[in-house]
């Protein structure tokens, strides 16, 4: 019985995570570089001009990829929060702690690229009838709430559990906000001309670039989050023997 759970507890060990990711990171870096290069070259050079949007469809490749990835942060933090609350696993909180600011960055970039795209497509930088951007704005606010709660509580353990709970509540809320904002808009504008749908009429030469970019952005998310979590491990475990040895080796 214990054997079945052993991997899970090992997973919770910061040292185990650090050693594993040392082995994974080169592969992740390589894959990320590959997908980013292919995605960027394709999006900038080979993506056909859209008959309506012209070259601005190149914006959408980045925007859609970043937007998709930023939707994964609250579920991620909610899962990590559940693990923190139920099993009191330190590693889960280290991931969650670094996910919040990264998620805020992602949400901000989604809003920025979305409104730059909108400035051409809608003729205005901000459009309340686009429910995706509006719900992204509220997700951004909630992420700032998680970050400021973390900053306000001094005790690390208390902060971890409080943020875990807020992430779970926030995750449910983000879903409710998303649906209610959608509802709100469909009623205001039944046949909205504004749609950020990835080019269903545009054929594969359009959406393959987007898919490549989505994979690239997820790989980037993983690399950045792992790097930040490893830093957190080094800081929190600074008294451990293996961290000391590591510091001396690196020097």
């Amino acid at each position: 019985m214990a054997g079945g759970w052993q991997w899970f507890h090992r997973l919770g060990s910061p040292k185990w995570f650090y050693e594993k990711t040392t082995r994974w990171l080169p592969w992740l870096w390589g894959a990320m570089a590959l997908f980013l290069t292919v995605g960027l070259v394709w999006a900038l050079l080979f993506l056909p001009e859209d008959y309506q949007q012209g070259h601005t469809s190149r914006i959408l490749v980045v925007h859609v990829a970043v937007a998709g990835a930023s939707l994964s942060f609250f579920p991620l933090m909610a899962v990590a929060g559940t693990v923190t609350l139920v099993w009191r696993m330190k590693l889960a909180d280290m991931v969650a702690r670094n996910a919040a600011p990264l998620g805020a960055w992602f949400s901000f970039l989604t809003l920025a690229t979305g409104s730059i795209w909108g400035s051409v497509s809608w003729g205005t930088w901000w459009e309340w009838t686009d429910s995706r951007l509006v719900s992204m704005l509220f997700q951004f606010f909630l992420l700032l709430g998680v970050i400021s709660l973390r900053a306000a509580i001094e005790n690390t353990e208390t902060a971890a559990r409080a943020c875990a709970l807020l992430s779970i509540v926030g995750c449910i809320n983000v879903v409710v906000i998303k649906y209610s904002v959608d509802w709100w808009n469909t009623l205001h504008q039944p046949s909205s001309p504004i749609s950020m749908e990835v080019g269903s009429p545009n054929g594969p030469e359009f959406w393959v670039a987007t898919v490549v970019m989505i994979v690239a952005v997820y790989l980037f998310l993983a690399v950045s989050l792992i790097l930040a979590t490893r830093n957190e491990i080094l800081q929190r475990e600074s008294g451990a023997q293996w961290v000391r040895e590591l510091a001396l080796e690196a020097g």
Partner: protein
Amino acid sequence: MSQASAAAAFIATLRRDLLISLKRRNDILNPFMFFIIVVSLFPIGVSPDSAMLRQIAAGVIWIAVLLASMLSMDGLYRSDYEDGTLEQLLLSSMPLYLLVFAKNIAHWLVSGLPVILVSPLLAYMLALPAEGYLTLVASLLLGTPVVGMLGSIAVALTVGLGSRGLILAVITVPMSVPVLIFGTLAVQNALAGGLPLGYLALLGAMLALTICLAPVATAAALRISVN
């Protein structure tokens, strides 16, 4: 036996909180006055034109209610935390869910209900057409407890902290967006001549869901922050 004592604890908490707030009149008066002042600023800031006001009346009242409830929420667990009552509640053998729920109800009765009762008057001052009143009050009755209970989670998470006004706002404002949307949509629907039962039913569903989940989360939050 234990069921009876849980009910007794529920009623005792409710009574205690109501009595305390009745003694401290400011708790009732402050959100109430704040609500009236905020609403009366809108005609001055936006336009005194009643055609314009009619359109924004429902939204203005809903936003003012949200702000007022946020103002009153700040003190929800503070005095209990400072005088140690909260710790006693956490240590008691009664389910914390019920005690938290009782406190939420007491708080709503004291700070939410007066605001709702005065809202028709302010709606009149904002030239809300007659068809809207019933829906406005109904949506407020269903929606404000949701906002209060969601806010209660945020207050519980920040109960021991010194400077938390902004954190509270950043957490509770996005959370109350769905309530605001359906509350104002219901009124607009009524003004357009429709029967807004669908929106009120959605608000009711949110209320039911919040009653089930929010006090659980608040109880967990209190256990985390009071340690």
